[in-house]
Every structure is written in structure tokens, then in C-alpha cells.
């Protein structure tokens, strides 16, 4: 566990060693605020709720989260530091988990910085604090899934751009499989299966700020699955 935290600490700190992290956060926050207030016509709708925000962020995540995860493995490969890392007395799982926790914590901080939005909403009317809290929890879970997926993909290449693009596409596919428009186009027997594995259809509960236990299990098992794949891909390096 100590090793996991050491790795996580190092990775987390290195996010802030370059300007990329700051640019990322600023753009993310500004974009979300812009979309929420302008595009979704918050003031026109006139309701003290973050519902549209919670519906919007998972889509913004599709492009922003892969940007967080893309460098985690790809850079190590590129620099050659993977060789040092993999010859330290660490278990592969410890390294994977350390990197994951670092990126998750970074995402958490970014999300936490959106606090002006719920603050504004709450000051304008009677907002449902419980719903807002659950909504954020849902966002963390969705972000967590995208991060685990992006992290795994980053371990498969040494090019950060490729890692970004493939991860973004993968997240998009995962999302889209649950969207109604797609579901009407596939054969009937496939629908329950797709609805089960897809991320897309589960947003209604996040939007409403409701924690559905089935969704939580879904997110957690997906995270576990992608982290497992990640450990496997790191192990297979040794055999290569």
C-alpha cells in the first residue's frame, strides 16, 4: 500500500510540473460553465438545479478525461523510464493502482473546482443539496470509468496522441452503445445486452441526482475490469 501511495504521490505531483495541467483545468472549468449557462440556457429555464450540468459533464469528459490519462504509461515508454520502474521491487498491480489513484485525484480536484456552480445555483433558489451531492458522485464514477479505460489504453502505446485518440473513441463507443438512437437501430435481442454494458443510458439517474446501486456496481466493475486489463498488459511486456 505504501508503494501505491508513493507512486500516486509522484504521478500526481508531476501533473503540476508542467503547464498542461493548469491549462486543462482552466479550459475544463470555463467550458463547462459556458455550456451550462449559455448553451443550456440556465437562466431561461429558471430552475435552481444542476441537472443539465450533470447531463453535460459526462459528454465533456469524453474528451477531457483521455487527456488526463494519455501520458501515464505512454510517456514512460517514450522516455525509457519504464525500464527503471519495472526493475524496482514493485508489483505490477501496485504501479497500476498508483497511477490510477493519481489521475483520479486530479480529476477530483478539477471537479471540486466547479464549486462556484452549485454555489450560484443554491444562492438563486431552493436547490436540492442531496441531489447535487449524488450528482457529483455519479460524475466521479463516470470519470473513474473513463480514466481506467484511458489508463489501460495508454499502456498499449508509446505515443500520447494515439493514446488520447483511441481512448476518446473507446469512451465514445462505450457511451454510445446505450443511447436510444443507436438502440433502435440494432436487432431486438441485442438491446438488453447493450443497455447492460453501455454507459450512455445511465445518465438519467445521474442527472436526477439519484444513486442507483445497480449503476454503482456497473461503474465499479468496469473500473475493476479495465484496471485488471492494465495489469495484464504491463505483465505481458515482460514476456514480449
Amino acid at each position, binding site marked *: 500500500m505504501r508503494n501505491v501511495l508513493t507512486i500516486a504521490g509522484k504521478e500526481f505531483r508531476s501533473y503540476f510540473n508542467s503547464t498542461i495541467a493548469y491549462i486543462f483545468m482552466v479550459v475544463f472549468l470555463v467550458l463547462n460553465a459556458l455550456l451550462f449557462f449559455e448553451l443550456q440556457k440556465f437562466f431561461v429555464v429558471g430552475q435552481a438545479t444542476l441537472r443539465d450540468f450533470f447531463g453535460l459533464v459526462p459528454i465533456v469528459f469524453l474528451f477531457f478525461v483521455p487527456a488526463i490519462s494519455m501520458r501515464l504509461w505512454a510517456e514512460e515508454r517514450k*522516455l525509457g523510464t519504464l*525500464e527503471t520502474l519495472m526493475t524496482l521491487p514493485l508489483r505490477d498491480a501496485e504501479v497500476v493502482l498508483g497511477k490510477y489513484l493519481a489521475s483520479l485525484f486530479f480529476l477530483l480536484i478539477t471537479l471540486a473546482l466547479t464549486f462556484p456552480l452549485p454555489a450560484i445555483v443554491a444562492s438563486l433558489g431552493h436547490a436540492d443539496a442531496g441531489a447535487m451531492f449524488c450528482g457529483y458522485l455519479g460524475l466521479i464514477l463516470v470519470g473513474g470509468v473513463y480514466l481506467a479505460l484511458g489508463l489501460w489504453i495508454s499502456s498499449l502505446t508509446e505515443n500520447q496522441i494515439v493514446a488520447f485518440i483511441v481512448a476518446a473513441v473507446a469512451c465514445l463507443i462505450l457511451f454510445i452503445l446505450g443511447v436510444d438512437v443507436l438502440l433502435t437501430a440494432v436487432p431486438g435481442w441485442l438491446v438488453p445486452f447493450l443497455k447492460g454494458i453501455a454507459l450512455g443510458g445511465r445518465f438519467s439517474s445521474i442527472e436526477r441526482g439519484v444513486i442507483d446501486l445497480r449503476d454503482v456496481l456497473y461503474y465499479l466493475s468496469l473500473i475493476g475490469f479495465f484496471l485488471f486489463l492494465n495489469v495484464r498488459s504491463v505483465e505481458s511486456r515482460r514476456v514480449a
Partner: protein
Amino acid sequence: MIEVRGLTKRFGATVALDDVTFDVSAGEVLGFLGPNGAGKTTAMRIITCYISQDGGTVRVDGLDTTTQSVEVRRRIGYLPESAPLYQDMGVIDYLGFIGRIRGLEAPRLRARIDEMVTVCGLTRMAHRTIGTLSKGFCQRVGLAQTLIHDPEVLILDEPTTGLDPNQIVEIRDLIKQIGQKKTVLLSTHILPEVEATCTRVLIVNEGRLVASGTPHELAAQSQGGTRIFLTVKAVPETVEPVLRGSGVVRDLRLAGTPDGRARYEIGSDADEPEAALFQLAVQHHWVLTELRRESISLEQVFTRLTTRETVVR
């Protein structure tokens, strides 16, 4: 300390290592010599558990690298080729990170970092970001991370590439110093370096071990005995039969006739052929102007072995 038995590794169709067997004893500084692509780095990566082998076993301190991988890595300090480092970290932060992973805790960690900074000559650079360091200092940081946990085994892949002559001398002295108490396996292209720092040499070529021994032993083996250059002021026709019949000379050839003298290259298996040859010259009233033992350089041994593909044990 390190036992390698029948090590084999293939990358697709290429055979990187072919049934390599050798030992590195505790307290030895073993030099791994070979042309590019001979398999040195591959062998080191297998010993340090970075990649796994296709055949054979490797044991470090009695522990198997496939089944007890983490324990093996704990005992090794490894400096990969071109000392890869995290460019955005500070020197001290980096050493702290490695130290913590290596199991060093707060007060001792700080002390060790300071020690490494001093020993590796990083005092002026300690507060700089790694990305701003020159190659020489990066190499030193790499060496510092190798030593910080005081490992029993050091594996160094071309530790002096890219350094300027002053830095090379410093690093070599450091390695020699460390080698007195630890087991060191280092690889290099630079033959004088092997002669300067190593107690024993392994020459590899195309994945196979072609020679093993001290630099001195290898030279003797490759030469096939001792070679002497003899120049006398005498008529060749009288000299040659005497030399051939002396019992000291195994083979000879006329190497030239500088200024009318006869110059011979003689191969001998005797212990001190120079003494016997001198006596012969005195006996036969030859004027002796050259009596020199030719020492074959490690470079020549290397060239012979790696262009001829002979397996010598």
C-alpha cells in the same frame, strides 16, 4: 551471486541469446564485452527482471528471477542504457522517490540522499530539475539511484557512454571503489575501460559467449602463448636454424630486414623465452638490437573473437 544457466531469448526470428551460461561471484567486477546487438543489454534486462527469457534459468543470491522476481529486484541496483530519468522531477525529489520505493524511511532516507549526492558529485546540481542537466550529470543521477539502497548487486549498462573524458575517469574510479565490496556486472564497448575496472571479462557475440577470463588470460589464450620480437645483426641463414633448434621457439617468421638486420616474430610456449633467446644471442655472438615481448591488446582479442565466431571456454 548471479548464476545464469542456458539463457536463451528470441525476438521473433532473431536469436538474441543462445544458451548462455556464466557466473558472477560476490565481490567481482565482471565486464560484459561485445559488439552492438550481441545480447549484452538483453541479458541484463533478463537478470533485472525487466523481460523474461525463453529458456534457461537465472538466479540472483539464490533467488529465481521468474518466481521470486520482486525479491530479486530488491537486491539489485540497475542503471539502464542512456540512464532514463523523469525529466520534470528535481534531483532530490527523484532520489527521494526511488529511495522510498526501495524501502528507505524518513530519517535514513534523507541521510542516504545526501550521501548519494556527495558520492556521485551532484552537490551543485542537487536542486535542479533533471531536464536541465547535462548528459554527464544525468548519468550520475542514474548511478545515484542505483546505489541509494546499498544493493549487493550492481548492473550497469554502458555506464560511461556520452561522458567527457574527465567524467569517465571519475565514474570508473567510482565503479572500481564500489566493486571492491559489491558484485558488479557492467557492459561496455570501451576496451580500455574493461582493463581499467574489471576483474574478469566475458566476450559475447551474436548471442553466444565466445570467451571468458581475466583480461590477461584472454590475451594469452588468444595469442597462443607468448610472442617475441627479436632483431639481430647477423645473417638470417645462420640465425634461423639455431632458433628453430633451440627448443624455445615453437614457430617463427621473418618479419623484416630493417637496416640489413634480421627481424623475427617468434611464438613460444616457454615461461621466459627472452632469457633463453638472450643466451642464444650471446653464445652465437649476434648483436642483439631488439628483444621485445608483444602483448596482445584486449582490443585485438576482441576483434579476433568477434569476427571469427570461435567458442573458447
